[in-house]
C-alpha cells in the first residue's frame, strides 16, 4: 500500500522552526559529517526526506531526532543552507507535541500568546493560593517554624502534588512514545529481554550525556563546552529537583546554613546560573550554528529559568540575612515561576530530559533486535526473499 505524500506538512513544521527544508536536495553531506549517524539511523538526510514528503506517520515512529544533540556541523556543511540541524530540532518539538495526548504542547509550540497566557494564569493562581494560605495561617515576618508564612511541611506537600501531576503527564507521554516508536515503528520482532539487557542505557545517557560529548570537533576544543555546560545545567536541575522534592524541610530551615544540604543547593545553583547565562549569551550573539535560530519557546524557557534562579538565590540570601518578610514575598514569586515551569515540562522542550535518554534506550533495543534478525537471515539464507 502506497503511503500518501502530504505536501502541506512542511507548512505546519514552519511553526515548529523548520523553515528551509525544501532547499535540501538530498546530497547526504549532513549524514556524512554527523558523528552519530550510522547504517541503521540515517539522519539527518533521511529525516529531512520524510519531512519534505510529509510522511507524518513515518516521522512519528522515528527515533532519529532524539539521537541528534545539535552540534550544528551538518548545518555548517550543508551546500544548500537547508539547515538540517535546525530541522532535527524542530522535529523534536513536533515529536513532543505528538507524544503529548492533550494537544497543549502543539498549542504552546505554535502560539506564543497561548503559552505565555497559560504561564501567567498558572502563576496567578499559584500566587493567589500561596498568599491566601500564608496570610490565613501564618505571619509574613516568619519564614520557618511555628507560624511560618509558608511552612516547609506545607511546601513539601505542595511540591509533591505538583511533581505528581507532572509525573503522570510525563509517564503517559513516554508510554505513547514507546508505542509509536517500538510498536508501530519497529518492524522486527523485539524479544522482551532486550528491554532488560539494554536498560542501563537509560541512566547512562541520562547522567553522562556521553553522545553530546561525541559531538565535539576534536581539534577545535580540548573540552566540548556546550556539552559540559549542558551537563552542568542538567545536573543542577536534577539536584535541585531532588532537594525540593525530598529535602525541602532542611532546605527551608535556618537562618543557619545546613552545610550537608545547602552545599548541594549552591552547587546546583552555580550549574544552573552558568548554563542559563551561557545559553542567553549564545542566543543573543548567535555565534554557534545551533543558536542562530531561536524558537519562541526557547526564549520563554531561558527567561523563566532566569527568574527561577534569581528569585531562588534572592529568597535564600534574604532569609539568611534576617529579612524574612522580603524573603517570603520573593519566595512566592519564585514559586509562581516554578509551578508553571514544572507543569509546562511535559508540553515543552524541557521534556527532552526524559525523551532523549528513553530514545537512546529504545534505539539500542531496536538496533539489537535488527542485528538479531540479520543474524538469523545470515544463518538461514533460505528465508531471505
Amino acid at each position: 500500500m502506497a503511503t500518501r505524500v502530504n505536501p502541506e506538512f512542511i507548512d505546519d513544521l514552519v511553526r515548529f522552526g523548520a523553515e528551509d527544508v525544501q532547499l535540501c536536495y538530498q546530497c547526504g553531506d549532513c549524514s556524512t559529517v554527523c558523528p552519530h549517524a550510522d547504517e541503521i539511523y540515517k539522519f539527518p538526510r533521511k529525516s529531512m526526506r520524510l519531512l519534505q514528503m510529509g510522511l507524518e506517520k513515518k516521522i512519528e515512529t522515528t527515533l532519529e531526532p532524539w539521537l541528534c544533540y545539535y552540534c550544528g556541523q551538518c548545518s555548517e556543511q550543508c551546500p544548500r543552507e537547508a539547515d538540517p540541524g535546525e530541522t532535527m530540532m524542530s522535529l523534536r518539538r513536533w515529536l513532543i507535541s505528538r507524544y503529548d495526548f492533550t494537544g497543549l504542547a502543539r498549542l504552546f509550540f505554535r502560539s506564543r500568546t497561548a503559552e505565555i497566557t497559560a504561564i501567567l494564569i498558572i502563576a496567578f493562581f499559584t500566587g493567589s493560593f500561596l498568599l491566601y494560605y500564608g496570610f490565613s495561617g501564618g505571619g509574613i515576618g516568619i519564614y520557618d517554624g511555628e507560624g511560618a508564612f509558608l511552612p516547609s511541611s506545607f511546601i513539601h506537600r505542595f511540591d509533591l502534588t505538583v511533581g505528581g501531576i507532572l509525573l503522570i503527564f510525563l509517564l503517559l507521554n513516554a508510554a505513547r512514545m514507546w508505542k509509536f516508536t517500538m510498536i508501530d515503528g519497529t518492524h522486527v520482532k523485539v524479544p522482551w529481554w532486550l528491554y532488560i539487557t539494554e536498560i542501563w542505557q537509560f541512566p547512562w545517557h541520562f547522567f553522562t550525556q556521553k553522545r553530546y560529548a561525541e559531538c565535539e570537533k576534536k581539534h577545535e576544543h580540548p573540552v566540548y563546552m556546550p556539552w559540559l555546560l549542558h551537563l552542568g545545567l542538567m545536573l543542577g536541575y536534577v539536584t535541585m529537583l531532588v532537594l525540593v522534592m525530598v529535602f525541602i524541610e532542611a532546605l527551608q530551615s535556618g537562618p543557619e546554613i545546613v552545610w550537608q544540604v545547602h552545599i548541594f543547593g549552591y552547587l546546583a545553583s552555580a550549574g544552573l546560573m552558568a548554563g542559563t547565562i551561557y545559553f542567553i549569551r549564545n542566543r543573543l550573539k548567535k555565534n554557534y550554528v545551533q543558536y542562530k535560530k531561536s524558537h519562541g519557546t526557547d526564549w520563554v524557557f531561558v527567561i523563566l529559568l532566569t527568574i527561577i534562579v534569581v528569585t531562588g538565590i534572592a529568597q535564600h540570601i534574604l532569609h539568611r540575612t534576617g529579612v524574612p518578610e522580603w524573603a517570603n514575598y520573593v519566595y512566592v514569586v519564585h514559586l509562581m515561576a516554578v509551578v508553571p515551569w514544572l507543569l509546562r515540562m511535559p508540553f515543552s522542550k524541557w521534556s527532552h530530559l526524559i525523551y532523549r535518554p528513553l530514545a537512546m534506550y529504545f534505539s539500542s533495543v531496536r538496533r539489537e533486535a535488527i542485528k538479531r534478525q540479520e543474524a538469523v537471515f545470515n544463518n538461514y539464507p533460505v528465508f531471505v526473499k
Partner: protein
Amino acid sequence: MEEFRTGVYICMCGTNIAKIVDVEAIAEFARTIPGVALAKTYKYMCSNPGQEMIVQDIKEHRLNRVVVAACSPNMHERTFRSALRSAGLNQYLLEMANIREQCSWVHTNKTEATEKAKALVYASICRVKHHEELESVSVNMCPNVLVLGGGIAGMTAALELADAGNQVYLVEKNNYLGGNLTRIDLTAPYLYSARDLLTERITRIMEHKKIRVFFNSTLSELKGYIGNFTALIASGNGTGEKRDKTETVEVGNVIVCTGYKEFDASRIVHYGYGKLPNVITSFELEKMIREGNIRTREGKIPKYVAIIHCVGSRSQEFHPYCSRVCCMTALKYAQEVKSAIPGCYISDIYIDMHAFGKGHEDFYRRSSEAKTLFLMYEKDDRPVIHKAGTKDGCEMLIEVNEKLSGEHIEIPADLVILMVGMEAREDSHDVARLVNISQDKEGWFIESHPKLEPVATTTDGIFIAGTCVAPKDIPDTVAQARAAAARVLARISREKIEVDALFSEVNENLCSGCRLCNTLCPFSAIEFDEVKKQSHIISALCKGCGVCVAACPSAAIKGRHFTDQQVMAQLEGLLAV
C-alpha cells in the same frame, strides 16, 4: 622510367612505438630494399624538426617517394602531405604505415611486433611506387544560400548570412516564422520572453532585401554539388506535385535547421494522457500560462500540481537520450505556477536533475526556495497516474517508488504536466534523403565529427544546426546556427573551392551503362548521361569511398589513389615479409 628514390621515416612517437617495436631494426631492414634511398628514425616525426628533416632530405637526396611509418593517417597524413608540398613534391607521393595503432599499441611481444612493423613498412614501400601525382580540382562557389526551416536556428543563420550581403532563400513549412519557439511563453533560466526573442528577428527577416522567405513551402529536390546546387522549392497547399507552384533557385550551400517535434505522450500508458482529462503536456501548459489561466478541465484552480520529467526521454523503450531542455522548463513551470497560484503545492517528479548550463543551478535553487517538492524515481520504474476517489480530495493520485527515501508513495494531483521530450520530425528522413545526409537510429542528422565538426555533414556544402541534430536549448541552437553561417561565409569568401583529388573516374571506353553504380553511390555522386548512355562521376561530390569501383562489373571505374595496382602491390608487400 624514373628511378625510385624513396625516403623511409620511422617515428618512435616518444616511447609509444619505440617501446615495443625496434625502430632501428626497421630502418636497417628498409635500407636493404631496392628503391629506398634512405631510412631514418626520429623521436617525434610530426614535430617541426621531424618535418624539417623530411623536407631537407627530399631536396638534398632528390627523393621522389616518401613513406612515414608512424601513427594512423587519420592523425598526421595532412601534416606529412604539407611537408611534401613545401618541399615541392606532389603531396600524393606519400604513404603512411600505421605502426602505432595497428602494431605497437596492440602487441606485447617485441620480436613479433617488430616483424609485423617490417611487413607494414614493406607494404607501404611497395605501394608508394605506384602512387601518381594527383591534382585537386576547384569548383565555383555560388554565394546564395538555402536555409531549410524558419525557426530560431534558421532565422539566425539566415540573418547572419544576409547581413554579410548574400542572398538567402528561407524555406518554411508553415505560414509563419518562429517554429516551436512560438509555442513557448518564457524561457528558462532568465525568464526572457520567447516572443521578444522572435519578433525582432521576424521583423528584420521580413524587411531584409537579401532574404526571400518561402512560406508553406518545402524543398522537393536538390541537385548538384557544393557551390553549385539547384534547389526545387514547392510552395502552397497540397503535397508533392500537387503543390500550387514550384520554383528553382541556385545556391552554393544549404543549412538544414528543420527542428524537432515533441514526443507523443499517449504512447506511455502509465500516464493516461488522452484518457485522464487533467494530464496535459508541457506545451498545453505553456498555452494556459500565455492565456494567464491555469485551470483544470473542470475550470477549477488546481491545488496540487505535479510535473513529471523525462516523458519519452531517457528510457530504453522510447528514446534513450536526454532532451536537455525539460529539466529547466519544468523548474520554470514550478516557479510560474507557484507565483500564479501561491496556495498550490507543486511536486516535481524526476529521474535526475540536469542543471548543466549557465545559471541553471541557481534556477534549480530558486525552485527549491519556492517550496517545490522534488521526488526522484528510478529510470524505467515510471510513476503511474490513477483517478482519485471521491474521498481523496484531489483529482488524481500518482503512485511511484520514491528513490531517495525508498518509500512507495502516492502523490495527490489536480493537474499533471508531462515534460514531453524532443524527437526527430517524422519528415526528417525525407529531408535527409533530399540533401543526402545521414541520420542516426533516432532520426537525428549526423554531423561529420561530433566534437570537431558539429555543424558540417559528410556531404560538402550541407550544414546542420539546431534541434534537427540533437535536442538542445536556445543558446546552443543559436550558437550552432551562427557557426553554420560562419562556415558558409568562409566558403563563400573564397569564391572557388578546392575538392580533394581522391575521387573515382569512369573509363568511358569500358563503361557499358549498366547503371549499377548509380544506385549504390552513398553520396549520389554518379549521374547517368542519357545521350552517351554512360555513367559519369561528379568529382566534387565523390568522397572516393570505392563502392562503385568494387561494384563495376566491367572494371571501368578507377578509384584515384586507390588503384588496383596500388592495392595489389600493398597486399603483396604485406605478404612478402
